[in-house]
């Protein structure tokens, strides 16, 4: 079950009209590509996608899941949207509640285990290893964890014993007991999950805040799985920017260019390769298909279909698809969102990473006058 309901309010203008999983990442990807590719690469092809906020874009993006080879008979991708049941439940009240509401979907496939995932994380992971360990431990619940490098108090922190049994779990603790944080990736035995969801307070409830503490209280066997790879929750503009730049600065993290056996799949844009015109210095940057470039690009990530006119200087920036930038503009440390049009001779030099969209540009224009 892939939870993509989150609104991602902390991403501000970037998610003004899109769900967080549909946010552009690394030039040509969307955040949701990572979880779908992980599933595809793990040969798991029965999934329900639980959507809530701005579902249209995601729906039309994912379609039948053929991009990820998930369009198979007897399984495939199902979109689970909020509905009104006979008992009058109207809206999903939290991540866990939405799974509860769609338990009939789970039952129809009669699985032994249910894998709960989020649609907005950046990582490459073979879920089979997690599930294998879950089975080997004869666990009821297994929580996948990663090692936090920065401030652990932003995450749900787990304390594991020598056998990897979970001793404690605290959401955003002030004094974290370890550096192991929950990735929001869980494996449940199906019946255990059913029981937990039923027992859960039928009000506002989700996995991190309610279900996991409940499981720990219920004397179930809750294990932690130590994921060794690169993992980023890109919940804020700053973390989104940093994770993007990791592809440039720390290529060994995500290993985006070492993809033959574990590719991140994304929907084709059907654009010709990008065309770099004139004589240009392109340094330490990523550029996607369909761009027409006639300027200097340094330490930046460009999505597809971007037009950059002569004399532009782009530095330390992330530019989303179909942005047009007029001649002699200078851009530094900006995230320019989809379809923005920047007039010639515009100077956008920021000290802090700043998101720029058409409204911002419009306002800037007014201020000038």
């Amino acid at each position: 079950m892939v939870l993509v309901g989150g609104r991602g309010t902390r991403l501000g203008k970037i998610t003004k009209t899109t769900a967080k999983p549909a946010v552009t990442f690394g030039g040509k990807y969307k955040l949701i590509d990572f979880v779908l590719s992980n599933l595809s690469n793990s040969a798991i092809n029965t999934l329900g996608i639980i959507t809530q906020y701005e579902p249209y874009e995601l729906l039309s993006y994912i379609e039948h899941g053929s991009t990820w080879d998930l369009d198979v008979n007897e399984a495939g991708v199902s979109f689970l949207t909020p509905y009104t049941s006979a008992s009058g439940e109207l809206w999903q009240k939290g991540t866990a509640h939405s799974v509860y509401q769609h338990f009939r979907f789970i039952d129809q496939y009669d699985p032994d285990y249910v894998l709960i995932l989020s649609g907005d994380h950046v990582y490459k992971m073979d879920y089979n290893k997690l599930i294998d360990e879950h089975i080997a431990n004869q666990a009821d619940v297994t929580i996948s964890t990663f090692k936090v490098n920065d401030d652990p108090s932003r995450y749900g922190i787990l304390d594991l014993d020598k056998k990897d049994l979970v001793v404690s779990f605290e959401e955003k603790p002030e004094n974290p007991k370890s550096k192991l944080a929950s990735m929001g990736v869980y494996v449940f035995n199906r019946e255990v999950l059913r029981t937990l969801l039923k027992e859960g307070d039928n009000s506002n409830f989700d996995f991190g805040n309610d279900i996991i503490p409940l499981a720990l209280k219920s004397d179930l066997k809750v294990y932690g799985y130590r994921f060794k790879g690169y993992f980023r929750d890109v919940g804020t503009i700053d973390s989104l920017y940093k994770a993007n730049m990791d592809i440039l600065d720390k290529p060994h993290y995500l290993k985006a260019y070492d993809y033959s056996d574990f590719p991140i799949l994304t929907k084709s844009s059907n654009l010709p390769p990008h065309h770099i015109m004139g004589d240009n210095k392109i340094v330490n940057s990523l550029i996607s298909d369909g761009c027409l470039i006639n300027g200097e690009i340094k330490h930046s990530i460009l999505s597809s279909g971007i037009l950059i006119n002569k004399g532009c200087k782009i530095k330390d920036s992330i530019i989303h698809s179909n942005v047009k930038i007029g001649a002699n503009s200078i851009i530094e440390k900006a995230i320019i969102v989809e379809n923005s049009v920047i007039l010639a001779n515009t100077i956008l030099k920021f000290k802090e990473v700043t998101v720029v969209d058409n409204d911002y540009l419009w306002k800037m224009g007014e201020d000038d006058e």
Partner: protein
Amino acid sequence: MMNKKMFAIVDATFKVNLEQLTLHRMPGALPFSGKYRLIDFTLSNIRNSNIINVAIFPYGNYRSLQDHVGSGKRWDLDRRRDGLFILPPKNLYIPPEEMITFQRMFEHIEFFKRSTQDYAVITSANIVWNIDFHKCLDEHIKSKADVTEVMYEHIRLKTFIISKKLLIEYIETYDSLEYKTMLDLVEKAPNLNIQIYKHDSYTRTIDDTFNYLKSNLDMLKFDIGRTIFREDRPIYSKEKTAPPAKYLNNATITNSMISSGSIIDGTVINSVLGRDVKVKKGSVIKNSYIMSNCVIEENANINFTILDKQTIVKRDTILEGSLRDPYVTQKEQIVSYFDSLRVLLVASESYPFIKTGGLADVIGSLSRNLARKGVDTTVVLPLYRKIRKEFESVIKSDFTKTIIYDEERYKVRIYTYRYNKVKYYFIDSFSFFDNDLIYGLENDADRFAFFNKAVIELLDDLDPFDLIHIHDWHTSLIPLLLDNSPHKGTPTLLTIHNIDYQGVAEKDIIKKIGISDFIFKDDHINFLEIGINTATKLSTVSPTYKEELKYEYYGKNLTYSLFKRERDFYGILNGISSLFNPEKDKALKKTYSVNSFEDKYINKLYLQEKMGLPINKDAFVIGMVTRIVEQKGFDLILSSFDSLLENTNIQFVLLGSGDQKYIDELLKLEERHPNQIKLNIGYDATNPNYIYGGADVFLMPSRFEPCGLGQMIALKYGTLPIVRRTGGLNDTITRYDHLTDKGNGFTFGNYDAVEMKNTILSAYDLYKSNKDVWNILLKRAMKSDNSLVKSTQKYIELYKMITKN
């Protein structure tokens, strides 16, 4: 307009020769513009013209096409009704034609009958363009045409609009009418209303490496690129996933297209790069097309080059081609700096030491040109009595060896001689080679088996070779012997000059050369077959002959053996020496060049005088210089020339020797037309160049022709060849096309006397009616480049490919 729906036929049946690039793929499957394949353009045009019923007719191995096209989903062609059909050939023994034949369509007549659309567009898979076929159809209907041919400027695109009804008529009568293809129909069918639709935006047919590189580079011109990659009519392709292209700290890019997954840390100028290409620091790529997954290592320098997929260019390597003649690699090739290459050529003859046929010329000139190009070249020959007699004074006795053959010890003496930088070794054996004859002795098999064995023993005394290049059956046991010798692992290239001579012998030969663990298929052994099975790589003397050998009509009993080695089999056209030059040829009455070709007629008068024909400047003189044997098409000549020569303006001269049976018949023909035919029987007797210089056309109606040199010489002398489209003739002669004035000669396809006669007559008509066009063809012919330098370069590239991989 009413019901004006179309279905589409995509013609992928014909071969085009893009050297290594089309060795294992059909032209439609060629990568283009970084992430496309050629067929994407035609399929996208079809999709953008709302055509939903499409049949692709592929040629031979269409796996890569099938893989790329899949269900047709990318072009909205995976449909419940209609959709995309790949219709393979049912009869694999029909060699490919210039374009799809009605016969080929007849094999799938159901498709045509079931189609509900009233019109068909027939188009091909190797065109780069963006066209709305509905505009063609509108014109077709408006002009009430029976057939509309689509052209761009003066380029024919093998694209036609025709009604379903008429098309089916021609398909069903394919075996009773003389029209084999739509091209025939447009050219020959009377009473048809044929219209031309001129497409007016950028179009290029990809039929050689020049056009391929040129049109890829054209996409870098903004105005051209935009007419092909239009937003309103997009080009669709099967998409692979790769991350965005990545630029590192040393990247400098000027006007280039770069595809996903590439990692660039060097300089790229005016080039197109496919997916996942790695360009390392210090390397420079200019004016080139680099296919996916290539690696260009540090400080390599590449200009006007096409790198096929997964080529690795090692550090410091310099690759330099030209726009007209790009440097081309083969898939997965490793190209490294060309330091030195040491090659051994082993053959039964080599000019100037011993010559009975074309093989000697090839070995003599190839070895000389290899040495000139810096290849350390050695040739080994048997010391025939004739060589001893003529060269006794110059060749030097070097040392002796003992060779064990059939459990007996034979003493051989090794002679050496350095000729034009080529090191020659001659193996002298009183028992085997001291004879006036070279071939045709009872013990030929023993003689050459012994020769092969002696060559292997000789290797012990020489510095090691990077490669051993062997020729025809006389040297075909060498790979087998190598494998059982201390020199095991030395790569070999076997070149087949003529598949008719195979060296069939008793099986005890194998025991005699000292090999015990050989598995016999039957009571005899076949030298050539053993060579084909054991050589590292194989080649033959033209790309078309290489293709033809896949068919039993040409490949005979070895078709299957060759088929198994298809992936290791190459076709390299021979070339002619620069001594063939009408500007300097002393055998001519008057020398001439492209700029003074008007003087050529003086040589015609001289030829007529010399042969005793009526001297007439306006007569149309057909020349032939050939062995007089069945292969050369004499059956066609004997059965059609009586009727051809009813036209008393036509004269025919023939120089040659050969089969008495044909000579007798030809002499009778000469008697019947004493004022029009003159024969000069006796091939070696005279220098034939006065015929090459004096005739108007040069006839080669061969049943098969592995390479053929006559047509190349004729071209050089501005004597337009009339040939059957087979083997090397097909690779060197492009037929005159009256719609575009292209071509350098006249061709016909079927081995058929009437077709030959009609082709000669159409040449005659052009000669009589349009001297301007004739002279354009003549000049174009004289400029054709079939030089030895070119073919030697191809052999060197093949040698490098074999030794570096």
